[in-house]
């Protein structure tokens, strides 16, 4: 029994049906971790992108080194680092928060590149035209650059959302009860790993299929030339 649901070991099919609610409980945690990690990645990635584009080399260079370091080290090790080292300095976070933070930090290195590429794709002639029309630089950014960069940035971000979702099972090592961990516990208690783990695989396929279809629809729905201003 787990989360108040009893499993039925009479046949593989009955077993699969009886543990589905348990796995779906785990799936909710997976989705929560995905969303939270994605939000951290979006915000932190923007910070990196701004720092990397800074005019001063003393700011841009360290930012480049840090993001390269984050990108080249495994999520699992970063997670261990946050989970075991932060408490030594008095920062004690729940496992779920640490996990979402680790996901966000790892993917911020990737999202910062998406921001950079998206913003660079808006031609300098656009900025020059905006200046010729006497728009302030803040207004140029919000009304000229962002509406044209967004259609390029959003689908790429969607792909990273799917990647984050596939990395959530790593959080099981710090006791987060996401879908894989739940399936493993069911396996540990019933000595049948085949059904729960196969179901997790199938559920993951469904989740990524839904998510990537959503990203594709978003991509076709967004106007390629930029979001028109009212």
């Amino acid at each position, binding site marked *: 029994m787990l989360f108040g649901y009893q499993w039925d070991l009479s046949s593989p099919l009955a077993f699969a049906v009886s543990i589905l609610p348990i796995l779906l409980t785990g799936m909710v945690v997976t989705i929560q971790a995905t969303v939270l990690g994605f939000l951290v990645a979006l915000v932190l990635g923007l910070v990196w992108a701004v720092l990397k584009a800074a005019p001063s080399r003393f700011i841009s260079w360290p930012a480049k080194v840090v993001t390269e*370091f984050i*990108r*080249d*080290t*495994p*999520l*699992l*090790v*970063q997670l*261990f*680092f946050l989970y*075991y*080292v932060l408490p*030594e300095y008095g920062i004690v976070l729940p496992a779920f928060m640490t996990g979402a933070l680790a996901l966000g930090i790892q993917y911020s290195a990737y999202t910062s590149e998406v921001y950079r590429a998206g913003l660079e794709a808006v031609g300098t002639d656009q900025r020059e035209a905006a200046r010729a029309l006497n728009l302030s630089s803040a207004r140029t950014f919000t009304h000229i650059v962002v509406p044209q960069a967004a259609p390029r940035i959003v689908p790429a971000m969607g792909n990273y959302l799917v990647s984050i*979702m*596939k*990395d*959530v*099972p*790593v959080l*099981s*090592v710090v006791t987060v009860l996401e879908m*894989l961990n739940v399936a*493993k516990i069911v*396996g540990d208690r019933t000595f*049948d*790993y*085949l059904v729960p*783990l*196969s179901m*997790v*695989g199938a559920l*993951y*396929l469904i989740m*990524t*299929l839904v998510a990537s279809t959503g990203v594709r629809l978003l991509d076709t729905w967004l106007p390629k030339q930029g979001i028109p201003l009212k």
Partner: protein
Amino acid sequence: MHWTEYFPPLMEGAWVTIQLTVYSTILGAALAFVFGIGKLSSNWAIKGVSVAYIEVFRGTSLLVQLFWLYFALPLAGIAIGIDLRLPPVLAGVLALGLNIGAYGAEVVRGAIQSVHTDQHEAARALNFTPRQTLWNVTIPQAVPEMMPSFGNLAVQNLKDTALVSLISLGDLTFRAEQIRNFTQDSTTIYSMLLVTYFGMALVLTAVMRGLETYVSRWRTARS
């Protein structure tokens, strides 16, 4: 235990990580070519298998695949009467190779499709068989296109090897965990671990760059 004493066990683990990375990258590259070309096949059976392979391994989590191969496959073996218990090394290499191979297959497919159609027409005009066209015209031009993405995938694969420590394989992360359990010196050991992975990734990136220049050498030779 002084921190310099951490080096011998860490290096032992690093060697396992290097071997895992090399073997699974080679396996992944082979699978990438087989299924990347298979996805472009006109034979629906070959195409279907390739698409299914790519979708399944790209659509699920690597850790799920690893656990499935290590914990679930032996049970599936019992059900059909074959011993499918894999040693951790084999399960690790298989899971990593199958996973990275699926990503690589999409890269191979994209690179092959990026070769201009007039190249195919020229090959046909010269009376090349489809096989000759593939091996002598398409692949030599497609391989340099794949290399930057393959470089990224190789680093991705190196990072993913850390997950095999979860099926009790004595890689770099596993050794670090053992030392931490023994000394409780988390800050030092995890910092060393991160730096080691970073160093290995830099070396791997350099190797992949070298390989990229090597496979693109015909471009500079003729232009």
